[in-house]
Each structure stands twice: as structure tokens, then as C-alpha cells.
């Protein structure tokens, strides 16, 4: 498994954290993890909702100082 890819999407209005995650998943291999940083509270709902819909793995969501860290594992 490669080093976790980090996507700092804090303050990103367009295309936004979920679109950045979708793009990043196309660049990694199955089993790799992506950590998205988002300052948008909506990401806490949007990202897990989409990850579950397409059957990737939601590794975890943690609240940091002024942003959220969401870790996703590419499952297919």
C-alpha cells in the first residue's frame, strides 16, 4: 500500500472536496488511502454518502481545528 494521498481542500469552493476526492480516486490503486481535509461541514455528510454508494471504504472522519479530516480507502 502506497503512502496515503493527501488532498487539502480547505477553502475549496469549486470544484469542492467531494469532486477532489472523486478525481483523486482515479489516480490511486485499489487498497490506497486518500485523506481529504475540508473546511465545509457538508463534506462530513456528502463524502461518506457517496463513498458508501460506490462501495469504497470510509476509514474515518475526525474533526480538527477548523476543518474535518476524512480518510477513504479505494476498494475497487
Amino acid at each position, binding site marked *: 500500500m502506497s503512502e496515503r494521498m493527501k488532498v*487539502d481542500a480547505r477553502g475549496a469552493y469549486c*470544484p469542492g472536496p467531494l469532486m477532489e476526492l472523486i478525481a483523486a480516486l*482515479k489516480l490511486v490503486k485499489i487498497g490506497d488511502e486518500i485523506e481529504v481535509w475540508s473546511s465545509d461541514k457538508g463534506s462530513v455528510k456528502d463524502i461518506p454518502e*457517496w463513498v458508501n454508494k*460506490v462501495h469504497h471504504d470510509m476509514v474515518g472522519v475526525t474533526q480538527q481545528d477548523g476543518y474535518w479530516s476524512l480518510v477513504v480507502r479505494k476498494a475497487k
Partner: protein
Amino acid sequence: MAKQILIVGGGLSGTIVANGLCRQLHSELSSGSVAITMLGAQDTHMYQPGLLYVPFGRMRESELFRSQRKVLDRRVPYFVDPAKNIDVDKKAVTTQSGKTYGYDFLVIATGSRIRPDNIPGMVEGSHWFYDLEGARKMRDALTNFKGGKVVININAPHKCPVAPLEITFMMKDYLAAKGLLDKSEITYTYPIGRLHSLEPVAHWAVPEFQRHGIKSETFFNTKSVDPKAKTITSEEGTTLPYDLLITVPPHSGQQVITDSNLGAGGWVPTVRNTLLREGSSNVFIVGDTTNLPISKAGSTAHFEADTIIDNLSSLIKEDRWARDYDGKVFCFVETGFSSGTYVWFNYTTPPNPGPPSQMLHWFKLAYNRMYWLSARGLL
């Protein structure tokens, strides 16, 4: 010995940087203490947003192009000899013809490209307007279209964030003008759970779609296209039939970036405020080529280029940093053949589009002509 500034990429961002540096470093260029060189892939410069109008016959192809050497300041030697390898450790760029260029400062402006080949069946089964050949084929397809199911399919990542809505509204107006609206149905698909990545734009679009009778399918990330069955299927498990499929294909950066191990997918890791390559103090990244979580758009390229011009000039003239990039993006949004609006935002100011108007549409049409002033660094 002259300080060498090498710009790789002859599109909008690289051209604005070159022209802006020529203005700010006028005396250094005259004395020979600074030299600027540009490498590119074409001898013409294309106004990419004009491609939106080509399938509908609203712009002639020739209006999109100018000679790159005429857009570029004549003090910048320009070579149509694309970079093959960029070695940031050796500070050298090798080109396809085998030449090697050294540099003191490098500006990577290699842009992005569409990759319909990354989705099975997309090349054979769909149309797009993101390059000239695609826009021509789409124009022919529209000419022959007699009505039916139109699917407008958007994939991530892509440049020009507003193009998905623009093509949808223009397609609706086109069908209405041809008298095909009552025989047709437009379905718009988008990768996330709303109509656009910009939340205020997405909210604005909901009643507009309803008013125009446009259907939508959100959370749709294309898995494959079946050109024989004329269906498109998403990772989320939805399959839509189509008679005409118009796609905004997923994009990647250029091959030279991945071949040079500068960034996955062709996107170079970039510091969001300085626009320096992560880990470099003399390599700037500008335009679509960055990995920044920001719109891949002409205006982004323009505002980033302005920042790099100021900083590179300041480093050379005064040995100091001038200013940071604040994330500014400004985009016009065509909402049909006769109305438009705009949206702007930066890293700290959220977007807030205003109501569409004919005046703003005319402003966009005017900008289609004034673009060349931006490329020359005059606007």
C-alpha cells in the same frame, strides 16, 4: 551571465506570464541580464471557451485562433518543440527534438487535456466540444439530429466548471430553435449530489432546470458507455439510454508531467499561496497544471499568472517576494443564447452569482473578442 527564465507551455497562463514579465523586466531584457524562452506544442494560440459556440454555428473556427508568435511579446523566443522531460534537480528541460534548455527559473504551464479514452466506450459513443475535432463532430451530429433523448454527461476532473450548465442551456435553446424540443428530452448528469460543484450555482440551477424541462441525474460518475446499445452506465449503478450523448470527459495533466515524475495524473503539487512547486524555490506552476483544489479555468490561470509575474519580477529586481495568490476565480456563465451571469470567489470569499441578464451575456460575447488583450497581458 543572464538569468534564464524558461516557460514550458504556450497556452493562456504561460503566454500571460511571458508577456507580463516582458513589461516588468523591460530594462533587464534590454541589457541582457534576463532572457525568457518559451516552449510549446502548437504554433497557434486557441481561445478555448470559443469551442462552446462552434457546435451551434455561433463562432467560426478561424475566430478561435491566432499565431502564437503574434500574441507573444517579440522579445520571447518561442519554439514549437514540446518538453519531453523536466528535470527539476538538474534544472534542465529536454524537448522532443532532443534539445536541452537550462534555467534559473522555470514556469510550468502545460495545462490539461481530455481523456475520454479513460472510460470504456466513451470515444466511440459520445460527442464533446473540448477540442476542435470534437466540436466539429458534435456540430455535424447536431445538424443531423432529428430529436430524441439527449444525455449531457459531466465527469471529474474537468476544466471550465461552468461549461456543463452552459452547454445544457444552449442545447435546450438549440433544440427549441430547430423545432425539436417537443420530440426531445435532455438529461444532465453530474458527479456529486447536486447540479454543480458551486453550491449557490447549483441552487440557482434547480428552478432553471425545472423551468426549461431539463431532467437530471446526480451522483453519476461514468463507468462505461455502450455505443451499440446507446446506453451510459454509472459507478453508482444507473444506466441511461441516449440518442445523442454529449460528454465533458475526465481530464488529466500532460504526459510530460507524469513521465518526469512531477505529479500523479499530470498535476504538479503546488503551494496554494505562492504557486511554487512543493519543494522548489525556483519552479512556478500555473494554470490547469497545478494540483490545487481550485477551478481549472481561464480566469484562474490569469489571476495566478499575474501573481507569478509580480513575484518573479520582484525576486529578480529586488530579491524579495511580492505577494501571495488569494485563490481568485471569476467566471462568466452563459444561461442560453441570450442571457448570462457571472460568479467570483477566492479562498476566503464564497461565490454568490447574480441573476442572469442580457447585458451580462453581451459582456461575455465582448470578452470572447477581448480575450486576446488578456493573452497579451493588456487586460
